[in-house]
């Protein structure tokens, strides 16, 4: 599986900083998932449950209270005003 560098950052620190296969969130225009090789992209996200598939294939769920998602060529950054892992 192709992976990319995912950073989930909140004002209280980074909650995830590592390789990931996919990230699913709820954007302003509906649900979206980011896989490796996505075009550079910026959107704001709604409060939602985020699903992260890590490089080893395990799935983690976390609640984000809105924020901004930035996809650039080499990394994906989710800036959330608050983020809590649920699993």
């Amino acid at each position, binding site marked *: 599986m192709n992976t990319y560098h995912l950073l989930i950052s909140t004002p209280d620190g980074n909650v995830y900083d590592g390789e990931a296969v996919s990230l699913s969130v709820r954007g302003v225009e509906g649900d979206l998932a980011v896989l490796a090789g996505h075009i550079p992209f910026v959107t704001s996200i709604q409060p939602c449950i985020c699903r992260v598939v890590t490089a080893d294939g395990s799935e983690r769920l976390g609640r984000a209270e809105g924020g901004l998602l930035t996809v650039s060529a080499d990394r994906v950054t989710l800036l959330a005003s*608050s983020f809590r892992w649920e699993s």
Partner: protein
Amino acid sequence: MGADTKALRARIRSVDSTLHLTKAMGLVASSKIRRATEAMLHSRDYAGALERLAEVLSSCPECQRSPYMRDEHKDGEKLRLIVVAGDRGLAGGYNANVFRLMTTLPAAESVIAIGKRACERYGGDPVSSEKFSASDAYELAQRLCREFAEGAYDRLGIVSTRYRSMLSQEAFYRELLPLKQGSQKNASVLFEPDELTVLNAAVPEYISGLIAASVRESFASEVAARRAAMDSAGKNAEAMIEDLRLHYNRARQGAITQEITEIVAGSDS
């Protein structure tokens, strides 16, 4: 002589209790330093990422229509200020530097104080700078952005303290709103649904991130300033006690010598 030694003993005791106090405050500050600097670095990462994004967004021509961007034709003077100071004193010049910088700025339409010392000076409900959370910052930023977009004020600035090192901190002023036009050209990025909507959604997050980062940085500066101040106060107290002890011993010895002289003189006669 008796009265002299008594007064000296009382002074030594009082300086000694001050020494205990400064030592305790210094220790409390030291124990908070690590946590405070860690929190500062975390929020700095977050604010830095938001700043880079805001720079990209504010460079887009479409975003010039946003209510948060600087309007060349309507550059109002109504300034609103956020002031971040400490919860307590005894931190050297930390609070005084912030308040001194405030006096050099143009008069503000209203002041939002964070930190109990700032609240005492500028009014408002006491808000602790130590316990100021990211969600408090977010609520404040939401309200400020809404009022800015409605035109309640024209400029938003923040006065806080920049942490340079353990030994050096400086008060500084930064303008948050309106946003200045960026100079980045980033044509290949896709914005969903469009640049303006993303910018308008990003600004409250950006302001909230900057407020939270400033409060964290100010708190780290406060504890570092307090530790340095308590360190030097402790050293001064120790030097003072040493000096007073010398005087006390001299006075005590003087009294004994005088007593012996009197006894010897009495037995001779």
